[in-house]
């Protein structure tokens, strides 16, 4: 199967998916499973065939020759397989979870288009192809977000659309500027062109191209759409939105940072500890993103918002690591990109499972679900251990590499941000663990059961992946090193279970052994001690009070109040609100102009026409 077929087939099949699933609700997800499974198989087969599958299509529009190129590179392959893989897992999940949802048909339809368009974005070989699929991706994801049940879905999706549109305008402008100069949009030629023109011009063009990518990544200060979109999107789409969509923005950043070697362009500019100031500022924005995301995540009472803010903060790590542009930074960023996709998809899927059973997203309205939903709990626990970066899961390895990259260069302030996000993540991941899964079970949730088996399958697969990549990071390092060689970056030394950093090496096998040893010792002590007696959760020490209401006896609301008190004034300065105020003022201005110009009087319109003619005549005379 050629690359163009991989991209076009999901888009064509989506129409049939829609028609069939209008009739049978579960059919849409089933078709998506088969489709994504088949494409997954195809993409696995094109592994290693770099550059030889390249396709191009020449179209002449009004004398301008556009060459649409598709190309298979290691980086594109990696993102492609991640996309299709997560579509596959989420489709398996949605078969059961969408049984009773009204817009299941449009969900499957849009999801299929979205998969095709993302594959188009990653396999694109020139800017025009990238842009077209980028827009298709924006629009299909916009409709997916706005199909969310909640009240805020419309507003959140508009915010997303407006930001994306601003980005799209900037991108298309820069594309046409480049096209008018060199008559081609092929990546390497664009890169050569950007290196040949004066640094200032190329920086402006790069910033214009970079802003849409930054918006999709959700970097401060354009992160405002992320939390609304994630929390309001349909529960099955949030995993994909956070796990995959944000990474596509990072893919664009990677194109800018590595394919167009910013080093060469900025070689003469001011540097901070050997890093061009432009890169350093980008890394600094990554750091600010980490801190903002962490503080706001800790405050949330809505579980999906909490995870959304945690996504913002984790994306900060990826941006920061990639912006450092050392081999270690590149490796750390890519590792974290993969790992974040795995554990964040898991977290959102487990939350979708919880929401599926309890029909609420407020953490204080849940509690004690562990004995009712043990598999979901196990998946969530593994995922948060990975997210918090605790060995022996995959999350620690990527963070370890990022820290090595930071220390190697001695970026102390970036390190502070990175560690703040890491320790802070213990706080925000523990909150849902404690309030949703542990503690007292609400009487209304007494009869809740574990989710159907089909919804558990993706959780098992993801759990296995997290531990597998935690013990054998070499699997990931293999593809990363291929990408590095493809992009002419130095590779980081690694074997199947070791990675060599700047200061010392990482050996996950030893850590796994020691961890198992420690655990076994504890288990032996525990088992050989006297057997204990099981009592209920209400049977606890209450300082002599008599408690009979489990709901009142569950500590969940405002879990970290003392901490939040420190940041109350910070959180009150909402950037979202600032943007909203700005938008309101623009609307006011528009209304004002409308009132003065659109008078409804025929005479004034005639006056405008004459005025225009006079201006045109004057302009013609001047020229």
């Amino acid at each position, binding site marked *: 199967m050629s690359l163009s077929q991989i991209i076009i087939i999901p888009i064509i099949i989506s129409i049939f998916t829609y028609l069939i699933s209008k009739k049978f609700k579960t059919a849409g997800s089933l078709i998506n499973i088969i489709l994504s499974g088949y494409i997954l198989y195809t993409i696995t087969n094109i592994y290693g065939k770099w550059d030889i599958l390249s396709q191009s299509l020449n179209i002449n529009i009004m004398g301008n020759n556009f060459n649409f190129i598709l190309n298979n590179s290691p980086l594109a392959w990696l993102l492609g397989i991640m996309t299709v893989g997560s579509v596959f897992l989420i489709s398996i999940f949605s078969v059961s979870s969408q049984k009773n949802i009204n817009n299941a048909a449009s969900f499957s339809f849009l999801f299929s288009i979205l998969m095709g368009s993302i594959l188009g974005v990653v396999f694109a070989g020139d800017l025009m192809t990238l842009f077209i699929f980028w827009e298709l991706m924006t629009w299909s994801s916009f409709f997916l977000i706005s199909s969310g049940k909640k009240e805020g879905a419309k507003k959140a999706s508009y915010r997303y659309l407006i930001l994306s549109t601003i980005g799209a305008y900037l991108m298309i402008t820069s594309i046409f500027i480049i096209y008018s100069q060199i008559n081609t949009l092929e990546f390497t030629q664009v890169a050569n062109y950007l290196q040949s023109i004066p640094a200032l011009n190329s920086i402006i063009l790069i910033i214009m191209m970079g802003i849409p990518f930054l918006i999709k990544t959700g970097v401060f200060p354009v992160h405002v759409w992320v939390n609304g979109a994630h929390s309001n999107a349909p529960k099955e789409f949030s995993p994909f939105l956070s796990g995959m969509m944000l990474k596509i923005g990072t893919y664009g950043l990677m194109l800018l940072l590595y394919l167009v070697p910013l080093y060469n362009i900025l070689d003469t500019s001011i540097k901070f500890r050997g890093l061009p100031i432009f890169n350093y500022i980008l890394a600094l924005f990554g750091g600010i993103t980490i801190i903002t995301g962490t503080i706001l995540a800790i405050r949330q009472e809505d579980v999906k918002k909490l995870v959304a803010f945690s996504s913002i903060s984790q994306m900060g790590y990826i941006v920061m690591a990639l912006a450092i542009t050392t081999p270690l930074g590149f490796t750390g960023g890519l590792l974290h990109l993969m790992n974040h996709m795995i554990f964040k998809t898991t977290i959102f899927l487990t939350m979708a499972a919880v929401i599926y059973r309890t029909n609420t997203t407020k953490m204080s309205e849940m509690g*004690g679900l*562990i*004995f009712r939903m043990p598999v979901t709990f196990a998946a969530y*626990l593994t995922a948060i251990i990975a997210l*918090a970066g*605790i*060995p022996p899961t995959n999350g620690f390895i990527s963070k*370890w590499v990022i*820290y*090595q990259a*930071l*220390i190697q260069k*001695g970026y*102390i302030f970036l*390190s*502070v941000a990175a*560690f*703040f996000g890491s*320790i802070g993540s*213990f*706080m925000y991941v*523990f909150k849902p663990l404690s309030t949703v899964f*542990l*503690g007292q079970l609400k009487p209304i949730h007494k009869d809740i059961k574990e989710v159907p088996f089909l919804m558990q399958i993706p959780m098992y697969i993801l759990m296995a992946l997290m531990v597998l990549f935690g013990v054998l990071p070499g699997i990931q390092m293999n593809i990363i090193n291929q990408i590095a060689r493809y992009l002419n970056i130095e590779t980081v030394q690694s074997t199947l279970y070791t990675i060599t*950093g700047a*200061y*010392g*090496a*990482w050996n996950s096998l030893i*850590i796994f052994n*020691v*961890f198992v*040893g*420690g*655990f076994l*010792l*504890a*288990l032996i*002590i*525990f088992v050989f*001690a*006297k057997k*204990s*007696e*099981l009592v209920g*959760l*209400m*049977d*606890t*020490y*209450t300082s002599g009070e008599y408690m009979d209401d489990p709901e009142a*006896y*569950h*500590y969940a609301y405002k*879990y*970290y109040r*003392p*901490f939040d*008190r*420190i940041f109350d004034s910070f959180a009150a300065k909402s950037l979202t609100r600032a943007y909203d105020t700005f938008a309101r003022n623009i609307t006011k201005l528009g209304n004002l102009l409308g009132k003065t110009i659109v008078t409804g009087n025929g005479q004034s319109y005639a006056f405008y026409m004459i005025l225009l003619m006079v201006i045109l005549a004057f302009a013609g005379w001047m020229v």
Partner: protein
Amino acid sequence: MIIITILEFLLIAIFAMALGLLFMGIARKVVARTQKRIGPPFYQPYLDVLKLFGKDAITHGFIFDFGAIMAFGGMIATLFFVPIGSIYLYSMSGTLLLVIYLMAIAYLGMAMATVGSGNPLASVGISRALTQMLGYEMPFIVVLLTLIYSSGSSSIVGIMQAQQGGFMNWNLINVPLGTLVAFIALLGLMGKKPFDAPIAPSEIASGPVVEHGGKYLGLLMLQHAVSIVVKTALFVNLFFGGASNILFFLLKMLLVWLLATLIGSVFPRFKVEEGVLFYWKWPLIGALIQAVIIIF
């Protein structure tokens, strides 16, 4: 070969538990003397642990059991990456950051067990503990990064070896401000007095351990004992130049532990957010100044 490794594994674990309990006993005696009491004999913690494992216990479900095992297992796993004198099982490079994160396993296990008991007092304690953790870890980690940068190694053994050759090469002398900051952070790390809001017996009934009894409390007590050894040994390795002689090493550890205990026995308690803000003020500024001096 594997039998020898397992034997070494067990010996180090038992040694650390015994040493930690001894330190706990000494601390009780010292605190008692500062308060003009006689205090229990120094071997009291051994008796306590033995007694606890013999007692009946109640459990609140499998997460209560699993958490206790995870807490102890995580701490034991951490122990093997911290050299005690010349005794260490694994001298893998890159252990310093690993140790910080491995300790987090123990905390996570403990947190799960305690919140799994369903007692809100335990949840309050955990919420305080995690908040305070964000406080003391920030300056501590900045100091650690400075050390890694200055000694060119991210392994504890490497940093220890970089300080060889007498008193003047110790990080205590080379990074004095960093040592002070790390010591203040160590107080928080060990839950010593100005920073003991997470357990606060008078407010939240010892917080995290409120529901634990019998073998559960015994396991947590052993975990605490091992954690004392891990933390003091880490501090000695990083700032007091370690030691090749086990006796000298133990003396240095005892010195750090006594100092922390004495400070802990005379101070009142910070409110939790005050504690966090305190850490982000002077210690963090001090750590940053030290980092800037070393790196630039």
